[in-house]
């Protein structure tokens, strides 16, 4: 665990975030602070809005009200005289480079090899020279334990390997913040450990991370903070050990008694 220096700037700051799909409100007035270099784990029942919250952080979903700042920069909107104006595609795309995302279903590009998956965005989006991008991708793939499998296509890799390629792909853009959307939920039980190990390693290296997960062990060991969400609101938050061992709210207790 990284001890957060007092006064360190928050990498992610969310204030009053609300979002509805039609008449169904999925997020209500969310506030969240994630200090630079810390790991925030989010748990909660399915349909509680955890994944939607992640999608709002890199503006994959537009928001109805509230503000999201990543590295001090307002995400997706420009504020002018008290109003929020949605930014053009180019600006949104530029901001998304700062935020890496890892999906439950991996979403690797199936027509590209592991290496091609990792170098695609650096070359196309950041205009990194191909030789340098390949060099970097090779090191990243080695780091997530895929040395010797660079030329494999996603279909030739196990779920755990695919997810580790997906992590390397996100890291290749040098993000300041990493979002994990239930990264181990689609994996066979025996493959969960290898992905969590890579994530733990990443947390140790000082990466700021927001992790939506059902792995309470990971939340306890690696998380600096734990947030419990239910029905679109943040019910409880705090030190993971405290929240998991002695939850204050009844809803948290009920949820934990069901999953433990």
């Amino acid at each position, binding site marked *: 665990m990284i001890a957060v220096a007092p006064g360190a700037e928050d990498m992610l700051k969310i204030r009053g975030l609300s979002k509805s799909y039609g008449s169904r409100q999925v997020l209500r007035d969310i506030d969240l602070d994630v200090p630079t270099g810390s790991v925030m784990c989010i748990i909660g029942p399915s349909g509680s809005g955890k994944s939607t919250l992640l999608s709002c952080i890199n503006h994959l979903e537009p928001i109805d009200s509230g503000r999201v700042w990543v590295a001090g920069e307002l995400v997706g909107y420009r504020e002018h005289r008290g109003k929020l104006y949605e930014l053009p595609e180019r600006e949104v795309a530029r901001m*998304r480079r700062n935020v890496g995302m890892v999906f439950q279903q991996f979403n690797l*590009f199936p027509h590209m090899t592991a290496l091609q998956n990792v170098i695609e*965005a650096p070359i196309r989006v950041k205009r990194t020279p191909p030789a340098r991008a390949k060099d970097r991708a090779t090191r990243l793939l080695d780091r997530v334990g895929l040395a010797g499998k660079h030329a494999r296509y996603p*279909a*030739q890799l196990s779920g755990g390997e695919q997810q580790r390629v997906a992590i390397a792909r996100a890291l290749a853009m040098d993000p300041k913040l990493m979002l994990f959307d239930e990264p181990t939920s689609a994996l066979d039980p025996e493959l969960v450990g290898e992905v969590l190990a890579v994530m733990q390693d990443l947390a140790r290296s000082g990466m700021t991370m927001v992790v939506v997960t059902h792995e309470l062990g990971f939340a306890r060991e690696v998380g600096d903070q734990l947030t419990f969400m239910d029905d679109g609101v943040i019910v409880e938050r705090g030190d993971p050990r405290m929240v998991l061992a002695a939850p204050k709210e009844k809803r948290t207790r009920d949820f934990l008694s069901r999953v433990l």
Partner: protein
Amino acid sequence: MAEQAAQQVVKLRHPGTWMATVVVLLIVGLVATSVATNPAFEWPVVAQYMLDGEVLAGLRRTLALTVAAMVMGLVLGTVLALLRLSRNRLLSTLSWGYIWFFRSVPVLVQLIFWYNFGALYATISLGVPFGPALFTANTNTLITPLFAALAGLGLSQSAYTAEVIRAGIVSVSPGQTRAALALGMRRLMIYRRIVLPQAMRVIIPPVGNEVISMVKNTSLVSVIALAELLYTTQLIYSRTYQTIPLLIVASLWYLIIVSVLSVGQYFLERRFRHR
């Protein structure tokens, strides 16, 4: 266990299959003998015209028409598919209307219609809308049989291709787009680099079929006096009265083109299959 393993398995016999094979072989043999020995087929005439200069020129026009109409169909079809998937309701409705119209009217009717476009507008002008014309020409000099053929074949082909391409794009998981967006890629790049290459797997088999259909649909152009393969052979047999052998010449050439294309399609599909 050992005793059981030693026992032999006797497969079920299928006497019906054998009888059917014999019957089919007999029929094929009868037809083949008849085709080979009936003098009315005039095989020497077929051989004489297979590599005839006039016929080969017609063949070249058929191939050129196929390529041109398919290129037109693919380019316009891709644009129509993207419009159809656009968030702008007007654009998607417009594309829907185009596809509806050009798929509904028979290609033969469209060809004749374009050929007679001069009856609708005697002259065609280019200029400022509702203002003065900068350029005016007689419709009949602009719309040659070739133009009418390309318009008729290409426009209706684009309507079919648009639906194939749209189905291909829709078949790609939305997670792919989300992943690409999260990496900071922009819409057009995502289409080009991520979505379309994956859609190809779904698009190529039906487009291969459409190319094969197009080779034969070009023969419709014979009604507007464009000397492609069929019309060329028709011109010859109207002089020589050797109708059957010349139709065989045309048929053999269509068979050859389609066979070559089928082989090409096989390799193209293999290339785009997921590894």
